[in-house]
């Protein structure tokens, strides 16, 4: 057992014993080789189930907003749960975003900040590919350290990468027709299982626009145009909010390159509004705010010919 993992287990056990949290969301060993999976631990004895290794790729913040949903019928005995979460840099950024958007009361969350050397992903379902590769999101991660940790577990972390978005720049150089072709090709793989949405910590809407039937924004039929509308709409809802954790990418059973598109939003949020969600930026998400001198060079001026 590595030392970091031990310290994390001890911290988790302490929190549970001390009664300052009701549960800890962390990782346990998955049922398949080269996997770690989310788990909820409710008593100190079980803290030894928690693991910390290079396969802890999921963003655990996705489970958090649901824990704070109040019961439909008000109950007298309802208490706001107190939740501990084993967090990487990206999980931490997501929590910060959820706190900013008032989905989660900060005081009820205890963040166990983990040192993160980057997580690996292996192709799903292939038996013999043992190696796994460092996830692209980790290679490009600009803030591997957990910024708002309540308990910081010591250990070696990756150095922050420089925000450069090389794939976005490269993609932008392609012709509009070529970009559309690639977008269409990627999206047409989608089977509309909604894994991207459900795995995304930012997709906490009680009823997603894609599930609304009155009006019906997107038909449940998995026709390409509906699927495009779904992804454009869902991804754009992350504009200025996406923490680039790749939860959507990792959840997708079809291997759709959603990162190619979500990164554009991250890149734009940084360039246009100086916002790195969960790291820097205004007190509200950039699209909920404005400045008098925001750029409007994109707008059409009919008198300018």
């Amino acid at each position, binding site marked *: 057992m590595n030392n970091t993992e031990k310290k994390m287990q001890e911290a988790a056990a302490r929190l549970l014993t001390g009664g300052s949290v009701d549960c800890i969301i962390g990782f346990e060993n998955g049922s398949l080789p080269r996997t770690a999976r989310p788990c909820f631990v409710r008593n100190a004895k079980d803290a030894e189930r928690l693991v910390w290794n290079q396969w802890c790729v999921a963003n655990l913040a996705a489970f958090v907003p649901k824990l704070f949903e109040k019961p439909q019928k008000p109950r007298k005995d309802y208490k706001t749960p107190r939740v501990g979460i084993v967090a990487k840099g990206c999980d931490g950024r997501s929590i910060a975003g959820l706190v900013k958007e008032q989905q989660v009361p900060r005081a009820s969350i205890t963040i166990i900040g983990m040192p993160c050397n980057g997580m690996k992903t292996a192709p799903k379902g292939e038996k013999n590919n043992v190696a796994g590769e460092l996830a692209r999101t980790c290679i490009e991660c600009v803030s591997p350290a957990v910024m708002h940790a309540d308990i910081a577990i010591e250990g070696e972390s990756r150095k922050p990468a420089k925000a450069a978005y090389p794939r976005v720049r490269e993609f932008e150089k392609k012709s509009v027709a070529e970009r559309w072709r*690639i977008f269409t090709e990627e999206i047409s793989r989608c089977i509309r299982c909604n894994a991207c949405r459900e795995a995304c910590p930012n997709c906490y809407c009680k009823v997603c626009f894609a599930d609304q039937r009155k009006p019906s924004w997107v038909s449940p039929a998995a*026709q390409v145009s509906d699927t495009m*509308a779904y992804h454009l709409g869902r991804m*754009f809802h992350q*504009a200025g909010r996406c923490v680039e954790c790749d939860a959507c990418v990792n959840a997708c059973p079809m291997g759709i390159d959603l990162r190619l598109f979500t990164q554009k939003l991250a890149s734009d949020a940084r360039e246009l509004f100086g916002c790195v969600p969960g790291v820097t930026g205004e007190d509200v998400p950039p699209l909920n*705010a404005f400045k008098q001198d925001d750029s409007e060079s994109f*707008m*059409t001026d009919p008198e300018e010919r």
Partner: protein
Amino acid sequence: MTKSNATAEPTIVAFLCNWCSYAGADLAGVSRLQYPANVRVIRVPCSGRVDPLYIIKALQEGADGVLVAGCHPGDCHYISGNLVARRKFAMLRSFLEYAGIEPERVQFSWVSASEGGRFASLIEKVVADVKKLKTGKKMAGESRSASLAR
């Protein structure tokens, strides 16, 4: 909406804010200003009310282009609706262009209640821009009928 794929006579869906741009369009009409008849106007309370989904839905349902127009900065009936909209549309336009939807198809502008002439020339410009594009009905044309049996 026609079913053809040609951009000869494109359909432009225009979301106009109730207080300025819709009045501007009205003024263009009252002043007997000529502008292309390709535009289908949808009146909204404020440019800030225009959800990006409206634009995506319009494209998906077969619009060749979408225009959103609101009050000039400082003139918003709701003080700052247009300024919030400006940020949203800056990112939306960039994002859609990135995904391969030509920027000519999705345009934003300011038109005040007194700018009938500006409205008419705006429509002329948008229609001319969309006519220049090689294909019509971007999202709808792509795949409404294609099914994904894989």
